[in-house]
């Protein structure tokens, strides 16, 4: 095969093997977006499992016995607000404003931590009342679905810490900006999953 000279344009999106410190942010983000779409399928299977098992209590406790909507409303508020604060952090990153970025990212981390603590307390409380993961098919599905979401939130917070270390070390470089954009996608995606969780699990559970 003859060698063909290819003229790369500014937005060339082919496979890049030789260039250093040159992140085609668009490609990385599209790749990460496709990962998130695959995560969607993971959650879809968990939601389907939950829906199928949603009436199988084995004579035990039902969600209407245990769910406290005021508690869930606060949890939801924390997560929805953290989506907003992450957006503000992204604006800080775009303006290369380190203080704004770290401040809003810190608030996002705190809100995520608050959400996760409340969720863990809830799990502890439910298990204590006699609705542990092994008590019925319903509660197995509940812990699998809500727990997987919680695990994702934890992963997001862990990622946030690592990224802040990167940013403190190198500043808001193109690479760090791409990483931050990926984390932003991830965080907003978790918010979207939580909307489905509070609608399908909590609100429909107490009806």
């Amino acid at each position, binding site marked *: 095969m003859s060698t063909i000279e290819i003229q790369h344009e500014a*937005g060339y*999106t082919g496979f890049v093997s030789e260039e250093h410190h040159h992140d085609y942010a668009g490609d990385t983000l599209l790749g990460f*977006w496709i990962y998130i779409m695959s995560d969607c399928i993971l959650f*879809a*299977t968990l939601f*389907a499992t939950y829906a199928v098992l949603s009436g199988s209590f084995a004579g035990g406790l039902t969600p209407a016995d245990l769910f406290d909507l005021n508690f869930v409303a606060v949890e939801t508020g924390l997560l929805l607000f953290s989506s907003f604060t992450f957006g*503000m952090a992204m*604006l800080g990153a775009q303006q290369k404003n380190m203080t704004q970025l770290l401040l809003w990212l810190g608030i996002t981390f705190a809100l995520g931590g608050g959400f996760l603590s409340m969720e863990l307390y809830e799990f502890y409380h439910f298990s204590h009342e006699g609705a542990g993961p092994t008590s019925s098919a319903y509660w197995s599905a509940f812990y699998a679905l809500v727990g997987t979401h919680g695990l994702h939130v934890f992963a997001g917070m862990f990622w946030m810490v690592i990224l802040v270390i990167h940013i403190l070390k190198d500043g808001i470089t193109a690479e760090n900006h791409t990483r931050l954009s990926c984390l932003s996608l991830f965080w907003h995606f978790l918010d979207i999953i939580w*909307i489905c969780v509070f609608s399908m699990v909590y*609100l429909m559970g107490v009806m």
Partner: protein
Amino acid sequence: MATQTHGGAAHGSVKEYVWGLIWSIVLTAIPFALVMSGSFSNGLTLAIILLCAIAQVFVQLVFFLHMNGDSDQLWNTTSGVFIVLIVAIVVLGSIWIMQHLNHNMLMGH
């Protein structure tokens, strides 16, 4: 042509994020208030919960993820639509099949 900083990552503004927050609070408050007060019938409440949830997913996609019809978002949107289809098949299909199975197995006689 998408530029290096643009492809797949549109930028937001403070105004956009504030609107996104306001919409998501409204669309969360409505279903919570309805279920807590229990003032409507179950069917109507269920329909409103679903509508608010779908609306809020779109609010999140538009205001926070900046999805739109731009050409540099084409692949994101295409893969998104594809996954929505797959998710619908998985979730609705599972519920449909399992309900029919329960029906045919005469569980609980």
